[in-house]
């Protein structure tokens, strides 16, 4: 166990005396308007997708079933919402693309195409190694879109297959990697053969990078490494 430090005695010298002010939470864009479909999308993304609890997944899946019944309208609403978001609303943008991934409907392909065609903005962080890499967030949005295409390709959607194949030539390594793995896992022999013919040079190694189950991955050791006995230095006069 860690050595106890139960006292909350204020530190001498005012250490840790930073002060933070927060502005009110940014509200999700209501770009979808007040239609019934817009309300369904807002409820799914806002209340069900990232929920917690024993019934959270069931509620999310039930909502997806309702959305699939009106998929073309839903996809149009998602596209409108996505366009209305600011560049730095990474989580919100990712949530919308995740919704398309889980919706698994062919109507999503043009929206996914649009997302993947957009250039990745330059890095906004001065130190992405210790802060948030904005390019990293943009890549996550795009690899999520690739996952959406991979699921549709596995369902036999020809448009998704072509678009997925095109991502194997994307400028960004992670997007290419995700596309290659999506095709490799799709079970589509023809698509896999087309990809093998197109992969050139360095990118041919991507065929060797496989998605594996976490139970097959080398595991961490765990354990307690912190040396016991740490205590704050005694106060000085």
């Amino acid at each position, binding site marked *: 166990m*860690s050595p106890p*430090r139960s*006292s909350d005695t*204020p530190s001498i010298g*005012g250490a*840790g*005396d930073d*002060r*933070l*002010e*927060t*502005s*009110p*939470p940014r509200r*999700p864009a209501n770009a979808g308007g007040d239609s019934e479909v817009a309300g369904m999308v807002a409820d799914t*993304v*806002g209340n069900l*997708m*990232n*929920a*917690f*609890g*024993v019934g*959270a997944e069931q509620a999310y899946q039930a909502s997806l079933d309702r959305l699939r019944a009106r998929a073309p309208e839903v996809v149009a609403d998602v596209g409108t919402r996505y366009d209305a978001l600011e560049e730095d*609303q990474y*989580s*919100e943008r990712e949530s919308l693309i*995740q*919704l398309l991934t*889980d919706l698994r409907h062919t109507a999503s392909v043009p929206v996914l195409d649009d997302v993947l065609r957009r250039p990745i903005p330059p890095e906004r962080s001065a*130190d*992405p*190694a*210790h*802060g*948030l*890499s904005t*390019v*990293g967030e943009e*890549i*996550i949005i795009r*690899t*999520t879109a690739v*996952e959406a295409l991979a699921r549709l390709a596995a369902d036999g959607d020809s448009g998704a297959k072509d678009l997925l194949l095109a991502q194997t030539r994307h400028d960004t*390594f992670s997007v290419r*990697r995700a596309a290659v793995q999506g095709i490799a896992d799709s079970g589509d022999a023809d698509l896999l053969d087309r990809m093998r013919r197109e992969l050139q040079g360095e990118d041919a190694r991507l065929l060797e*990078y*496989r*998605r*594996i189950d*976490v*139970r097959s991955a080398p*595991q*961490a*050791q*765990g354990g*307690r*490494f*912190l040396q016991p006995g*740490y205590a704050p230095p005694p106060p000085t006069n």
Partner: protein
Amino acid sequence: MVSCSSTVPDKDASGDNFYGGVICNQTYVDYFWNTYGFAGNQTYWDDGFGYEDPCNTDEPLARTFNACFLLTYSAQDYENDGYEGKMLNWARRYVRENNNDLRALCGDGTAIAAAFAGDRIELYQGFWYSKDVPGRAETLVHESRHMGGKPHNATFPTGSVFGAGGGGADSDWSYEGAWMYGALYLWWFFAEGARTTSALRERARQRGNLVIDNAFATHPGFNI
């Protein structure tokens, strides 16, 4: 005194609204405060950082508690945290055993966290306002690995989003550094995270793959 300000992002997308509805319970507040290195650090967690309002998920303390909740309760059998088992189970134990001094500071506005090996972990604005709840749990695991004396030992590979050629990478997966610990935790959360949705687990997968693709000098040759 350093003063700073933050705009709170949409709390639905980050997961804070949902976990925040659970952590507002004195039992959890006491447990997290006394278990994960907050105790003794009131001066770091007041003045807008949440000490006076631990249920307010606009403020850092509750947003950190949300990560602590996810870290503690995401395994189906969360009471079993033996190191011989899955990391999803023992990550909470790892964090509590390798982190006894968790502080809240402004940072430079974008910085996420820093570990001072054997001494303390500092959390900054980027931790609370740019990472979602699973991402914050990953950071606690990552920094706790540093606390145990495991520094980064390599430079980021060509094309890395974290800054190609710069320091801060791990040489490879087998080094078992902080990046490996963080990615492995996200991987287990994706595979077996309980009491959450497949969408949130998928987000953990995408984030874990970003780490695998960019944070090792030598790519491990597998992905999530």
